[in-house]
């Protein structure tokens, strides 16, 4: 058994049989991908925390009620829930994602990281600024594909299903996103 990785499906079975720690393992396994994706969509750390919690509360409720059907993989299913919650949020507030919080504070700076010294923190800040500028420069549909493919690690097939477009449309959006990011790097001379 040593070194053997328990699959999501097995953990889900364990959880359905009443093992709470299986749920915790599932959350910890996917939390970074899910949270990073939510955060890049909403660009507000506190809101991202709320949506992350709401996502897993829905996940827990659905599984506990026996309504979860193993049609696909666990992660795409959770990502679909979180993505819908992000869209619901923007529909309710009738706005598009914002860059900073209402008081103009750059929320990127309060994210928690395990930097050991100031130099690490500076490098990380520069790297995050670079990524932020690149991702934020994209039209919403392209940004969506970049976040779902790159950060949530969903396949183009899964992205097509979640965003209700064809696989070729999802691929085309990614292509334009890469072209646009390349242009921005050239124009603004962002070093990569």
């Amino acid at each position, binding site marked *: 058994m040593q070194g053997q990785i328990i699959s999501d499906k097995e953990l889900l079975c364990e959880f359905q049989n*009443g093992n*709470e720690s299986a*749920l*915790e393992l599932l*959350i*910890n396994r996917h*939390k*970074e991908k899910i*949270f*990073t994706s939510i*955060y*890049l969509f909403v660009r507000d*750390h506190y809101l*991202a*925390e709320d949506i*992350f*919690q709401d996502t*897993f*509360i829905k996940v*827990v*409720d659905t599984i*506990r009620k026996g309504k979860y059907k193993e049609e696909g993989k666990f992660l795409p299913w959770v990502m679909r829930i979180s993505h819908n919650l992000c869209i619901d949020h923007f529909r309710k507030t009738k706005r598009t994602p914002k860059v900073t919080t209402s008081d103009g504070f750059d929320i990127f700076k309060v*994210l*928690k990281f395990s930097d050991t010294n100031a130099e690490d923190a500076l490098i*990380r800040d520069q*790297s*995050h600024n*670079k*990524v*932020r500028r*690149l*991702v934020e420069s994209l039209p919403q549909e392209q940004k969506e594909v*970049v976040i779902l*493919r*790159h*950060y949530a690690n969903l*396949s*183009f097939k899964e992205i097509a299903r979640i965003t209700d477009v064809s696989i*070729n449309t999802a*691929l*085309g959006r*990614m*292509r334009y996103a*890469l072209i646009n*990011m*390349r242009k921005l*790097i050239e124009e603004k001379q962002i070093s*990569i």
Partner: protein
Amino acid sequence: MNQDFTQLDLIRFIYNETLPQESKAIREWISKDWEALDLVNEYKRIQDTLDGFHAQPSPTSIRIIMEHNHNMEEMETSC
């Protein structure tokens, strides 16, 4: 561009979504076509840049979810 592959195939290739045979053929193609190789390398550099960002939820969020699950379990057993 190669007649057998499109730009969209290159996107699938850099995200490891091509079949082994397709990947092999694409690798052979870009080893002979400098323009295509440049494009792939450029896309991969952008991927590396994007890799530089990751965020984590707070432990409080995980605790809230676990508490919710616990409460649900208690409700179910008391019914």
